């Protein structure tokens, strides 16, 4: 029988293979989704945020450089493109919803999409945010897989974009109803569309939890804003 190798050797072997990074990513996400379900799907217990905090904490603790982690986890990352293509299916399913109100929804989409970018960038300048942090703001209202695709094309940080998108989604899901109530927006379809446009998937889940009609319009707005932003953002940021 061969003697058991020392634990440090096993560790060196494991931390060098993609297995550890994949295990960490999936395990942390599993914990995140479990907490999210247990919290009655509260917007604050966002599974991505929980997973990111757990993984970031562990790799800092064991001293694994981010580059090494990402090399292992890139197999998960690669599927973002395929997931983006998959968003065609909910958009197609909502086509009849869109057609019924196309001349109301399209202007709302263009104005909303532009407002998200312009308000974020001008506020960032007004509040003297470090310029290195501004680029990630462009696509912050866009569903993360598309937002990161846009960020890559514009040579801004996909990491910051993903973080801002998740935080924006959570903030929108929590603050949205107060804004909508203050403005006396009563129709569920109007409330849902605004939530999906500004707060993508997280706002959409929130919209579905209050009304199916709001959820359908939120899901449509999220998909449309993904495509609209991919066209609009490169045009809008030219002057900056």
């Amino acid at each position, binding site marked *: 029988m061969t003697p058991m190798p020392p634990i440090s050797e096993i560790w060196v072997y494991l931390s060098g293979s993609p297995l550890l990074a994949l295990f960490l990513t*999936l395990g*942390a996400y599993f914990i995140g989704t479990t907490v999210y379900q247990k919290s009655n799907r509260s917007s604050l217990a966002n599974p*991505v945020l929980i*997973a*990111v905090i757990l*993984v*970031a904490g562990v*790799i800092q603790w064991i001293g694994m450089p*981010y580059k090494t982690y990402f090399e292992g*986890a890139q197999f*998960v*990352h690669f599927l973002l*493109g*395929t997931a*983006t*293509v*998959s968003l*065609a*299916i*909910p958009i*197609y399913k909502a*086509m009849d919803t869109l057609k019924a109100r196309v*001349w109301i929804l399209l*202007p*709302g989409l263009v104005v909303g999409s532009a*407002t*998200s970018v312009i*308000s*974020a960038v001008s*506020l960032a300048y007004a*509040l003297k*945010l*470090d310029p*290195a*942090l501004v680029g990630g*703001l462009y696509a*912050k209202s866009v*569903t993360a*897989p598309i937002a*990161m*695709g*846009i960020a890559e*094309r*514009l040579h801004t*940080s996909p*990491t910051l974009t*993903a*973080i801002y998108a*998740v935080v*924006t989604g959570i*903030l929108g899901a929590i*603050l949205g109803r107060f*804004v909508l109530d203050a*403005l006396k927006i009563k129709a569920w379809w*109007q*409330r849902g569309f*605004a939530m999906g446009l*500004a707060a993508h*998937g997280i706002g959409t889940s929130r919209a579905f939890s209050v009304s199916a009609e709001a959820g359908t319009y939120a899901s449509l707005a999220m998909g449309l804003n993904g*495509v609209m932003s991919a066209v609009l953002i490169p045009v809008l940021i030219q002057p900056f």
Partner: protein
Amino acid sequence: MVQGLVQLLLFQALGEVASRFMLPLMPGPVLGLVLLVAYLMVSKSIPANMGLVAQGLLDNLGLLFVPAAVGVVLYLPLLQSNWLALSLVLCLSVMVTIGTTALVLKLLAHRLEK
């Protein structure tokens, strides 16, 4: 399942080619999405296998951007020194976006649906 994945990868590849040679500022997967919507509108049905794989990916969408988001460890010092301004920007911007969008819809609905 494999069949559905192949179909999605095909549209992703078509999108990448369209991005590379025609619209370099548009991300390939977004063009793939647009092409797939067009295809579904013409064929008027969702291939069962494709629907299944797409649903699986969309149900676990959050998992897919964990690896990139963990890169936040590289930005921690910068985020710490800017957290107040950044929180204000994100809060105010999402509120302005929700409000503006809803007001445009309300205004147009009032004009067009009466």
